């Protein structure tokens, strides 16, 4: 065996000497197949050049070959000299495929195969070549990813290639990324002017490179890098603020969703419904139930849950109104106690009938993932949907209250019950409808919440105090107040969280509201006129 190899090497050496002199003359042998063949016979030093030439042919198979070489899976059948790619190299017999056609050649004893040897230096070269190959694919998204992978990985050889690539690249984003990759290399080499290119980037690798540059011996470079870092920090701060705002709005819209139903039952009807949180929970469990009904179609189930959750919660609301609340009219404190009892019963009912443990609700594909605005800021889609949903629900409620017959009657009964009844409005029916509407909206909140928190028996409890706070903060009986209060409380909470921690932030918001109510006992937007006296 070793003699064989020795002989082969000697032959190779001779070939090399010949090949090197003939290389330029043999332009026709630059066909991919020929290059591949030469690769097997070439020495380590020449392999890189050959591989590069291979990648430059633009052949679609080049990527597969390069990967095979990198993984040591390109081999030659000793008898025939045919090139194969080893698909599976476990055991004695290896599964192989033809390198040129990709045809499955079955298994062959590993003794009959001669693998191409690679060392680490070559492997690194191949990585570089591969990323350059990726820079030439048609899909700009893939090109961008490839360019991003090059950040901080550029060496001298790659730098020249990148410069060539920059001449032909037509996508702006990819160009920027490539310029950055190149600039990082130049900064590493001590180029002061390249620092200016990097100053706008938010990429962590860029920051790392600049941080290195700050510690460099060249004072001019260090100063420039420091300046660039400062401008990046400024930009990052803005992005972080945008992110906090987004989280704040998202939390706020959840609060709005949870509280808006309460704003109707508490604010408009004056009924304290402590079971409101459990109506939210029912909505969330409806989503879970729908997903059990339509296994494998979480998206469809979720969309169907919107009307279903509304209905379930609305029916539960009607049941509560008819069985308890109607007997406690004008006794808000007793209503509070009775509905609290109902909330305990509903919680325990879910624990006993379904499970005391949390249920998993699947997030459909079109709701998962995130939108990347830039390197430092990406927005999760499910929260974006919840924000949108909250706004839609709010707009819908506003329309119902302002533009429909029901809304008119509700407002009439709220403002003067006796007068409304004498005008022929059936006050009892309006009560039922209003309560059903408020409860149904709680169900909608549950459907939305099922996408961002755990669905369990305690789901409602976690939101009831917050919801009341939002309604009270916004001003009872004012839907706009609820919207603004919910969004601002959510944002304040998120603003406090980074330096106070989640729990402390929540405590501070609660204390803030308690203090605020001292100043303005009737909330941000108090009701005016006669309705306020009720």
């Amino acid at each position: 065996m070793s003699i064989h190899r020795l002989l082969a090497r000697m032959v190779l050496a001779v070939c090399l000497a010949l090949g090197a002199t003939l290389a330029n003359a043999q332009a026709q042998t630059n066909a991919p197949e020929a290059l591949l063949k030469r690769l097997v016979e070439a020495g380590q030093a020449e392999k890189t050049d050959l591989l590069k030439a291979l990648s430059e042919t633009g052949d679609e198979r080049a990527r597969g070959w390069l990967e095979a070489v990198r993984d040591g899976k390109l081999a030659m059948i000793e008898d025939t000299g045919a090139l194969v790619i080893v698909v599976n190299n476990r055991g004695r017999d290896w599964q192989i495929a033809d390198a040129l056609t990709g045809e499955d050649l079955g298994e062959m004893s590993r003794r009959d195969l001669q693998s191409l040897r690679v060392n680490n230096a070559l492997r690194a070269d191949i990585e570089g070549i591969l990323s350059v190959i990726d820079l030439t694919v048609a899909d700009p998204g893939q090109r961008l990813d490839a360019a991003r992978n090059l950040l901080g990985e550029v060496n001298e050889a790659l730098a020249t290639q990148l410069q060539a690539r920059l001449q032909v690249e037509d996508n702006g984003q990819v160009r920027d990324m490539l310029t950055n990759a190149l600039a990082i290399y130049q900064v590493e080499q001590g180029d002061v002017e390249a620092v200016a290119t990097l100053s706008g980037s938010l990429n962590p690798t860029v920051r790392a490179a600049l941080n290195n540059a700050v510690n460099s011996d060249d004072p001019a470079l260090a100063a420039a890098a420091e300046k660039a870092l400062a401008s990046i920090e400024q930009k990052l701060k803005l992005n972080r603020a945008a992110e906090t705002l987004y989280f704040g709005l998202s939390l706020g819209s959840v609060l709005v969703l949870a509280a808006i139903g309460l704003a109707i039952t508490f604010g408009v009807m004056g009924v304290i419904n402590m079971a409101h949180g459990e109506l939210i929970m029912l909505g969330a469990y409806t989503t879970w139930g729908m997903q059990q009904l339509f296994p494998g179609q979480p998206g469809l189930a979720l969309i169907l849950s919107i009307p279903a959750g509304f209905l379930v919660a609305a029916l539960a609301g009607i049941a509560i109104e008819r069985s308890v609340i109607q007997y406690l009219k004008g006794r808000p404190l007793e209503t509070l106690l009775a509905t609290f009892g109902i909330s305990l019963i509903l919680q325990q009912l879910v624990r006993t009938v379904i499970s005391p443990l949390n249920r998993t609700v699947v997030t459909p594909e079109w709701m998962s993932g995130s939108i990347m605005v830039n390197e430092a800021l990406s927005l999760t889609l499910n929260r974006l949907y919840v924000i949108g949903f909250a706004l839609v629900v709010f707009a819908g409620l506003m329309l119902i209250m302002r533009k429909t017959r029901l809304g008119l009657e509700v407002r009439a009964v709220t403002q003067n019950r006796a007068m409304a009844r004498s005008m022929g409005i059936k006050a009892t029916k309006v009560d039922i409808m209003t309560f059903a509407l408020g409860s149904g909206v709680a169900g909608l909140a549950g459907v939305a919440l099922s996408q961002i928190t755990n669905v369990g028996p305690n789901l409602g409890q976690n939101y009831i105090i917050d919801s009341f706070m939002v309604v009270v903060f916004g001003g009872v009986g004012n839907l706009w107040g609820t919207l603004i209060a919910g969004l601002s409380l959510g944002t304040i909470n998120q603003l406090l969280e980074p330096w106070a921690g989640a729990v402390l932030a929540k405590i501070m918001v609660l204390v803030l509201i308690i203090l605020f109510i001292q100043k303005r006992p009737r909330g941000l937007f108090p009701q005016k006129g006669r309705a306020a006296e009720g």
Partner: protein
Amino acid sequence: MATSQTWLLRPFQERSTQLFLGVLFAALVVVTFLHLFMPEDSALHVSAYTVTLLGKYLCYALLAVAVDLVWGYLGILSLGHGAFFALGGYAMGMYLMRQIGDRGVYGDPVLPDFMVFLNWQELPWYWQGFDMAWFAFIMVLLAPGLLALVFGFLAFRSRVTGVYLSIITQALTFALMLAFFRNEMGFGGNNGLTDFKDILGFDLRSDATRLGLFLATGIALAVGYVVCRAIVTSKLGRVSVACRDAEARTRFLGYRVERVQLIVFVVSAMLAGVAGALYVPQVGIINPSEFSPLFSIEIVVWVALGGRATLYGAVIGALLVNYAKTVFTGIMPDAWLFALGALFVLVTVFLPKGIAGLLQKRRQKDDDQPGAQEATA
């Protein structure tokens, strides 16, 4: 001095107070007798476990009296009285913690175990002084009293009443619960304060100490009841009932409504604190769950079941509900929340005046029998 004496002694002339105190002391004597002098195997023997359980009920009864004082006579439905109860409990817990000394798991002479565990080097400032019983006992009154003073001052001054006040008291106890759950607060976080050894030098595990605590709780309940009756029958109490029924009118008559509310609220918070302080050595632990809004609202339902604005009704309600809770959670734990929830609904819808209301109705019926003209309340 003379006036204050008559003020405090007035309740003793009432038949209802005499009856209440008579029943209470009779119960204390009977339990003590059955515990000490009945042989262990006798069916009439009251075990030390039962004595402690009864002591716990009496703490709850005192707490219910405190809630009834503000809800029944001032019209303020506090959903945060658990916070005052827990603060009193924590003050007592801190004293008991310091009494452990170097007998803790880590054997540190000053720092409680959980602080050693958290790697704290020295006692936080607010733990200073709790090794002295007198200081701790003052704090039992002062801590809840101060919180009630500040909170009440802010709330009543800006005329927050009714449902709003209920909701912000609930937010208050919720915020405190979250705060006490944090380890950084220095109150043992999740686990709270526990592993107590002795109180005033008496071993907490001995039967004699348990009986002593039970009797102390009974006496505290009696004193609390008399103080509440004294307040209720005084001029202050009559003004506070006026505030309850027509706040604006009382204000227009020239009374400083917010002062009346503040005084009654603070007294009630202090009573709740005392109840908490007596509760902790008997159950052997205090943790943030006492701050939970559910507990506070449970207290309210004890009072509602017993009948508000009667004080003795609150005691009956607290004893009944907690006895039921012990029985239910023993036999079928799942059913307890159903039962409690149903209790909330049934009492408010069908029994708005509670058990005391039923008793009064019967008495009125007896009185009015010949007249047949029934007073509908």
